């Protein structure tokens, strides 16, 4: 008896392809994505940090240190033309999110380093020395720590090379005679500033918000399937409603629902976690991104519901696709943790653009006019999903009018 019932259970599972995918394939996909992301944090595969190098000092030591930094595989250096205004350009790039960090070798740094070596007092490490500046984007806390370590390592290599070449008593003293932070004084400057800014809160409000926007849109889109199953669709079509009317009305409703959902999420983030929300710039940016994100989520849900034949199928397909899109698109962990190729794949998902847009608003304080790439991509996805939904709707059984 038990064997028969077990057999029946197996037959049921075997005939439910969505359940099979959820049971066996989705865990493997998730495991693979997480392994690719967090496995990449192994030292040998650490992703190069997008770094702006601003060399304002023409001392030979600074030039040598800059060359060593350029050769470091852990840094993806963006060069700046000339020394004039290099620091400001570097700051702007970091502030705009185009680089994770900027390394500034300020005027007098090389001389200070050399003098410190001669007096063996810790070149640049004392209060009188000139420190290297790291212009940091605190939304990527990994970058500042790693870049600081790589700069210290480069400085140590510079000292060792000089000893080997010149036979002097070292440009730099051994590590144990320096500060705990390393042989160089490194000053980390947060270019986006403000202790009250909450980069992780902004990230997770956006990431989680977009992910659940998709779940809600897909769940509510199931009404299309219910209407088909219960004959309501036929009744609607026999009235004045065309499939296009039906889809657009659902899209409008789901879009408004999505905007409300995101508003609740971000207001909660403000209330409970201190997210800065109430500035005209952020409110305007939020409104634009909320509308664009809700539009694409609603269209995505409708496309799925139009294509699926049953609620169970929709549930399975939506769960699989939303979880994968969310993992790849950066809803679950910041994209800077991902290997470059995975981040590139993630950029093909609309989640990534939505999350990035909210990050631009709440972290980089982008104005509405600066959000056009994200908005354009999201609206493009919306149109594509709506077109797909309409195409699937033309195949709804028994309806060809």
């Amino acid at each position, binding site marked *: 008896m038990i064997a028969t019932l077990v057999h029946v259970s197996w037959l049921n599972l075997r005939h439910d392809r969505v359940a099979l995918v959820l049971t066996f394939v989705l865990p493997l996909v998730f495991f693979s994505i997480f392994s690719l992301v967090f496995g990449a944090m192994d030292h040998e595969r650490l992703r190069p940090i997008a770094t702006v190098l601003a060399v304002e000092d023409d001392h030979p030591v600074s030039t040598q240190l800059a060359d060593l930094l350029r050769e470091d595989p852990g840094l993806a250096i963006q060069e700046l033309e000339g020394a004039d205004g290099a620091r400001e350009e570097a700051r702007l790039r970091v502030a705009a999110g185009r680089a994770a960090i900027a390394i500034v070798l300020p005027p007098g740094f090389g001389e200070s380093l050399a003098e410190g070596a001669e007096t063996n007092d810790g070149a640049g490490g004392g209060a009188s020395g000139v420190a290297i500046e790291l212009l940091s984007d605190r939304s990527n806390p990994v970058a500042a720590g790693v870049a600081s370590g790589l700069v210290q390592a480069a400085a140590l290599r510079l000292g060792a090379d000089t000893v080997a070449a010149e036979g002097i008593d070292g440009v730099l003293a051994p590590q144990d005679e320096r500060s705990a932070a390393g042989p160089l004084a490194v000053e980390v400057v947060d270019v986006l500033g403000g202790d009250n800014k909450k980069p992780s809160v902004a990230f997770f409000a956006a990431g989680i918000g977009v992910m659940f926007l998709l779940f809600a849109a897909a769940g509510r889109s199931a009404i299309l399937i219910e209407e088909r*199953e*219960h*004959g*309501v669709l*036929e*009744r*609607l*079509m*026999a*009235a*004045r*409603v*065309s499939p296009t009317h039906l889809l657009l009305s659902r899209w409008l409703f789901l879009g408004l629902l999505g905007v409300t959902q995101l508003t609740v999420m971000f207001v909660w983030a403000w209330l409970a976690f201190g997210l800065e929300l109430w500035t005209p710039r952020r409110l305007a940016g939020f409104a634009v991104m909320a509308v664009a994100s809700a539009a694409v989520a609603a269209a995505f849900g409708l496309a799925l519901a139009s294509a699926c034949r049953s609620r169970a199928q929709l549930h399975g397909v939506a769960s699989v696709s939303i979880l994968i899109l969310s993992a790849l698109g950066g809803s679950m962990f910041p994209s800077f943790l991902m290997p470059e190729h995975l981040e590139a794949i993630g950029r093909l998902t609309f989640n990534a653009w939505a999350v990035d847009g909210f990050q631009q608003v709440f972290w980089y304080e982008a104005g509405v006019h600066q959000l056009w790439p994200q908005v354009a991509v999201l609206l493009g996805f919306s149109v594509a999903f709506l077109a797909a939904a309409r195409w699937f709707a033309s195949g709804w059984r*028994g*309806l*060809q*009018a």
Partner: protein
Amino acid sequence: MPEPALRISAAHKSYGNVEALAGLSMSLDEGEWVGLLGPNGAGKSTLMRVIAGLLRLDKGSLELFGHTVDGAGSDRRADIVGFVPQEIALYPLLTCEQNLRAFGRLHGLRRDELDQRVAWALEWTGLAGRSGDRVGTLSGGMQRRLNIACGVLHHPRLVLLDEPSVGVDPQGRQRIWEMLAELRQRGATLIHSSHELDQIEALCDRMLIVDHGRIIAAGTVDELITGALGERSVLHLECDGPTAEVPMSNGFQASGSTVRGPLHDVAAELPALLDEVNRSGLSVRRLHVERPSLEAVFTRLTGRELRE
């Protein structure tokens, strides 16, 4: 001469290689209540969908009240045609009144007119006391009545009823039939698809039998029976002894103490047969002359049972 309510000529509709309508033609007068009969897959649902504007004809023409309509749904068609699907096509989480208002608005009813129609529908269906209840909490019969009301709230001139009382208990069916009779009294033309032959036979003015995408017979019950089976009736006779020795005309069969066979002219043939029985020394215990049923007509015409 008034234009027919509905006229379909040489209608063709295929799904891939399957021909659902194969040159179907039919006509309905205004105010008629017509039963649509046919085995599953005969083309009834496709015909209903074509009339409702849910499907386009591949070939052929369709006229409603003298106006040719194309295959697509239109405001005009939505105004004059009411469609009641076989399923309970309602929103179960909405109340009765909310459902009525929603479908009324979709049919273009507004403000006072909508209020009046909703009030009428609630009275008509006997659901005035349940107007604020969610549809999902109603009994099957109540849901069926509301299902019909939502399809006719805009007072269409032609009403398409696809199995409007399926799954309802006898009392509930009776209530629905009364509602439909009231609709007809208001002047609506009804096309009523059902598997319940006794119901169709009792209610409808005329029947259309559909098979393989065509109307294979049309008329009143008498016309259908005469057309398909002739004027004959069937005699069932039970005697007090074996009937094998009773002289009988062709077509009669004796079995034990019973006799069964066709009577083409009851008044002339029955007395003669009873005389033969008496002469054989037998007495009649029970006698029953049966008119052929619509079911027999249907089986004769289609070669299938209605529910096949």
